């Protein structure tokens, strides 16, 4: 069976610098997979390549077995790929509810409609509101995103991505910048996501990785160092070296 997401020999060079070096990667359906690595290992570059924000220098990207290497971002989203951003990337001037409505409208293919008022499509608004209720932020629905505390904005970030009903969800440091007291909420929500969504979590926080992930890929200097179960990674001498080396 084809993987939910796959890259083959994915390369990206900025001048002489190789930030992605022949990355072969498989994300199985329904996976709970983490991508870790020291600062500058190329994790975010990898996400940007997969989503189409960056063009690879070489290699292929497949979603559900279909080659999407040449497709623009929007088309990849239509194939079921969604992401969240490491730094909140939201429509700050719009209300929480409108943020989610935009995503749902795009998914349902009604966002290009110029004739009917947006408000007449209750189905979009109702679905958005229900999503906010599930994430426990329905009471903020009318507030502009920019007025929300950062931790709450993280939840909107998730709600927007989930509004796309993705098959593959890339979570770029989902709890970054959130006070540890509140990050538990985010972890709970991620744990309770439908099992058929393949998750790729890009993370620094090892506690979070070991709690959520069933497989881990370690990226170092743009290349895959090792992949395995959490136990294998925890016991791997090379991984320890990379992380201890960085700490020293």
């Amino acid at each position, binding site marked *: 069976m084809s993987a939910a997401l796959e890259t083959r020999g994915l390369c990206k060079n900025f001048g002489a610098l190789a930030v992605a070096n022949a990355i072969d990667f498989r994300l199985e359906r329904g996976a709970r997979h983490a991508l870790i690595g020291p600062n500058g290992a190329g994790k975010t570059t990898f996400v940007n390549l997969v989503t189409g*924000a960056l063009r690879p220098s070489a290699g292929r990207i497949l979603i559900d077995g279909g080659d999407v290497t040449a497709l623009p971002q*929007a088309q990849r989203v239509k194939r079921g790929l969604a992401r969240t951003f490491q730094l909140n990337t939201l429509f700050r001037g719009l209300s929480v509810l409108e943020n989610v409505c*935009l995503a749902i409208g795009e998914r349902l293919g009604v*966002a290009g409609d*110029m004739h009917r008022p947006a408000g007449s499509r209750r189905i979009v608004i109702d679905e958005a509101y229900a999503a906010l209720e599930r994430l426990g932020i329905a009471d903020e629905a009318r507030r502009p995103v*920019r007025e929300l505390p950062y931790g709450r904005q993280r939840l909107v970030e998730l709600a927007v991505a989930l509004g796309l009903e993705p098959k593959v969800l890339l979570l770029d440091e989902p709890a970054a910048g959130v006070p540890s007291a509140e990050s538990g909420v985010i972890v709970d929500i991620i744990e309770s996501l439908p099992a058929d969504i393949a998750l790729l979590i890009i993370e620094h926080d090892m506690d979070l990785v070991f709690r959520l992930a069933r497989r881990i890929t370690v990226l170092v200097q743009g290349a895959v160092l090792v992949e395995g179960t959490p136990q294998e990674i925890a016991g791997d001498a090379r991984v320890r070296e990379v992380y201890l080396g960085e700490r020293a």
Partner: protein
Amino acid sequence: MRADAVGGAAPQAVEALARAHRLKPWELAPWLAAIAAYFLFPSYLPLGAQILIAILFTLSIDLILGYAGIVTLGQSAFFGAGAYTAGLLAAHGWGEPISGLAAAAAVAGLLGLASGAVILRTRGLSLLMLTLVIAEMLQEAANKAGDITGGADGLQGMEVWPLLGHFEFGLFGRTAYVYCLVVLFLLWLVARRIVHSPFGRSLTGIRENEARMHAIGSPVFRRRLVIYAFAAALSGIAGALLAETTQFVGLDSLGFERSGSALIMLIIGGVGRLYGPFIGVPLYMVAQDRFAQADPVYWDFWIGLLLIIVVVFARGGLLGLAERLLRRRGRKP
């Protein structure tokens, strides 16, 4: 437990959004004012028509700047294209005004589509400059093609037929005023409909955060191109209205001053609200009529100063400060 707490708010938030597009009573205020002006200031109707035309032009800029976030310095390209289209038709034997507007809208809209398809691929400074380049290019073309356009002397010999075969464009500007008012009202309805449509909402999304629009699968380029071409058509109609009501088209219809002053009127009124032009344009143009005729040099000076004060101390100042404070509070771990 949480669902109970917000149970009451649920319909509220959803209802509010579902009703956002409904016409509110105060939205009729500018139209009532415009009708009142017709009876109260009969000797100012020519100025009134100019104001209505400028509102339409500024409205077209608001659509792309205020909603899609495209900063343009060259919207006059489309205004001028529309003006010359209607003007040339009327100078060559077809002076029917309404079809003149339609032709102007088509030419300007196509021009917007073609130039937009090229320049909307760029960003930031390049985009800003290319909007200017397109306008300069057209102005240079109109200037050099003097045989057709009359060059720097302007297009002479327009003959506009009576409106609907009945109403002459007379000296007192009554027909012109009503004509412009009706056209503006109809196009405002269309613009309003677009702004409140899902398409309009997605434009706001593009303005607020383009990266995220890509990430939710929005065809950003296409959306921008559509509104760019639509706004170009609106500008073209505004230009055609000016040509038909004044029976003249000059090179200044394509000039930077027109785009620049429309931008200023929009800022004074408020960007991205659809009503900014209705406040900013009359204020600016009435003031200009009163003060600028005595000394246009002083006028430019004070307008420049006002612009700087608004931008530096009123916009970037207070709002920017509040935003920075909020952001800092939010980031604190």
